[in-house]
């Protein structure tokens, strides 16, 4: 059974490397766009309960963690936080010691060693100890897991995790990162699960007293109101929270794309006292109170708590370039056509039963605006639409382009392609300074 499970797990890991294609979001949005809008229901009692919940949330979230200010000295960075053991981080004055254990039926012991709570996250340091005489096989730790921490007004999902085996592979020491927990929680519970050979899961809840006064205060936690204009609207930065475990910038978009997220999130840099803070990723969120789509940018812990300046640089972001010139379709070839600063390739124009198929190639991140795409044929303007997903076109010299087949229904030979414009990744390099409120 072990051998089979290993194989299946490896198979799963292989499959898990497959990621949804970048154009998926676009495809799904277009599919939704094609179907008629539903009438919105106006549900009065429901609206009430929503605003009641919202009011409660505002009260709760404006509550500050009590005490435990970070006392000077060096802040541990993200790598240190996840690679050190809890006793090592505790020596630096971080977190709350827990030391609560629970056994699975097979004798495996789970221990929560300690936790670190702050405004951005909840870190849980834990140990899995196998029964006497057993050792972990490669990747076997994935049989164990936690998905949530629960407590009063707390239902925090796991966002990251990692860890290591000890030398003799009898133990696994890991750190889970969850969404922040509510400071009003007194008891927190994590349900640890173990995947059994039978395919069932055994769940063991581990509960502990949460001491909110050991939670760690943020270095910066402030609302900001800064906007950066971009080709398709504005990017708004709404808050910066630099806590002892991470730095998070939240904001929203106001773009002229029907309340959607941008085509490319690009790259946003953060500088503290002139030094760049390492960027760990972008997460798109739901819509805010005004129906604007939100985002979250994650960075490493700030290198110091003595902040003199804080700057956000919108380095790269979605750009949009209008095209005014018609693109000739009369001599398709593998030679590029220069349009503004980008290139397009009209590879072929082929007659079909109902009209013409046109194969257009572009660079991977040059996305044609297909909303009002037309072809001029026989003096008339006829709409043209993609009939295939895009596929790679390997030039064999290290460059891989994307090509796609478009179809137009006309008996006249297409003369020009009329494109409104295209989206691409543009370098903005716009720098904005965030005023620091010293508390």
């Amino acid at each position, binding site marked *: *059974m*072990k*051998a*089979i*499970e290993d*194989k*299946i*797990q*490896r*198979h*799963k890991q*292989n*499959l*898990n*490397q*497959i*990621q*949804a*294609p970048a154009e*998926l*979001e676009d*495809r*799904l*949005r277009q*599919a*939704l*766009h*094609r*179907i008629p*809008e*539903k*009438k*919105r*229901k106006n*549900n009065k009692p*429901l609206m009430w309960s929503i605003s009641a919940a919202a009011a409660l949330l505002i009260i709760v979230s404006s509550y500050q963690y009590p005490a435990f200010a970070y006392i000077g000295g060096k802040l541990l960075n993200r790598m240190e936080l996840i690679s050190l053991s809890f006793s090592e981080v505790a020596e630096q004055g971080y977190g709350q010691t827990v030391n609560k254990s629970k056994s699975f039926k097979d004798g495996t012991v789970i221990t929560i060693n300690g936790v670190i709570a702050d405004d951005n996250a909840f870190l849980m340091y834990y140990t899995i100890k196998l029964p006497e005489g057993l050792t972990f096989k490669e990747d076997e730790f994935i049989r164990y897991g936690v998905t949530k921490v629960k407590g009063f007004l707390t*239902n925090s999902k796991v966002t990251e995790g990692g860890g290591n085996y000890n030398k003799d592979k009898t133990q696994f020491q890991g750190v889970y990162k969850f969404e922040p927990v509510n400071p009003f929680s007194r008891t927190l519970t994590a349900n640890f699960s173990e995947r059994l050979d*039978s*395919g069932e899961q055994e769940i063991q809840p581990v509960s502990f007293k949460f001491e909110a006064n050991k939670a760690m205060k943020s270095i910066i936690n402030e609302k900001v109101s800064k906007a950066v204009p971009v080709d398709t609207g504005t990017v708004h930065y709404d808050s910066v929270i630099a806590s002892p475990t991470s730095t998070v910038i939240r904001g929203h978009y106001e773009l002229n794309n*029907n*309340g*959607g997220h941008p085509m490319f999130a690009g790259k946003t840099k953060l500088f503290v006292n002139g030094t760049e803070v390492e960027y760990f990723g972008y997460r*798109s*969120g*739901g*819509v805010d109170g005004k129906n604007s*789509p939100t985002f979250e940018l994650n960075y490493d812990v700030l290198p110091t708590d003595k902040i003199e300046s804080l700057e956000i640089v919108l380095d790269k972001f979605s750009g949009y370039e209008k095209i005014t010139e018609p693109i000739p379709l009369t001599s398709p070839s593998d030679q590029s056509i220069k349009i503004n600063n980008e290139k397009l390739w009209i590879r072929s124009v082929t007659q079909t039963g109902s009209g013409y198929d046109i194969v257009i190639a572009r660079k991977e991140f040059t996305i044609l605006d297909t909303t009002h795409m037309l072809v001029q044929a026989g003096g008339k303007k006829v709409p043209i639409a993609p009939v*295939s*997903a895009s596929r790679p076109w390997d030039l064999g010299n290290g460059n891989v382009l994307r090509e796609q087949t478009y179809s137009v229904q006309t008996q006249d030979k297409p003369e020009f392609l009329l494109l409104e414009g295209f989206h691409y990744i543009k370098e903005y390099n716009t720098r904005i300074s965030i005023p620091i409120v010293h508390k």
Partner: protein
Amino acid sequence: MRVSRLVRQAQNGNKEALLQLIMADQDAYYRLAYTYMGNEHDAMDAMEDMIVTLYEKIDQLQKREAFYSWSKTILVNRCRAMLRKNGKFTPLEDEQDAVAYELMAENPYLGTEAEMDMKTLLSHLNAHQREAIELRYVHDFPYQTIADMTGAPLGTIKSRISQGIEKLKVIIGGDRYESD
């Protein structure tokens, strides 16, 4: 908390909220569709059909927290219907080769040896057993969800999985293998 809020917005006709829900777990949906369809093109088509169905039927979803298992059930049904229409009567039977091939062809990082192994192994199972084992162990669905997805009774799903595992055990030499 956030999921049920988005589901409520989607139930009120907000398309972007529905899209958000799907995008938040896009890789899992895509892998699920990919396991059935075996190529990017068909997997994306299945997901397009799914999101249209979700938008039309989301009013019928009573338990908002159940959005993910409900929507994935619709995706699985869509994939099965597409395969049936293409004349591929039993879902994973003919597709398995395609999956293994795609895995190797498209992604050089994938452990081809492990994949070959699994492909050979799974080819000894019947399509139902294979489907149930993949849904259980690769996509991590609970037994009940698999039963809902495939329209088979819970007991049948459990026995498909255990019989499949038993069969694999025999093939790779069961306990002997372990003590080697």
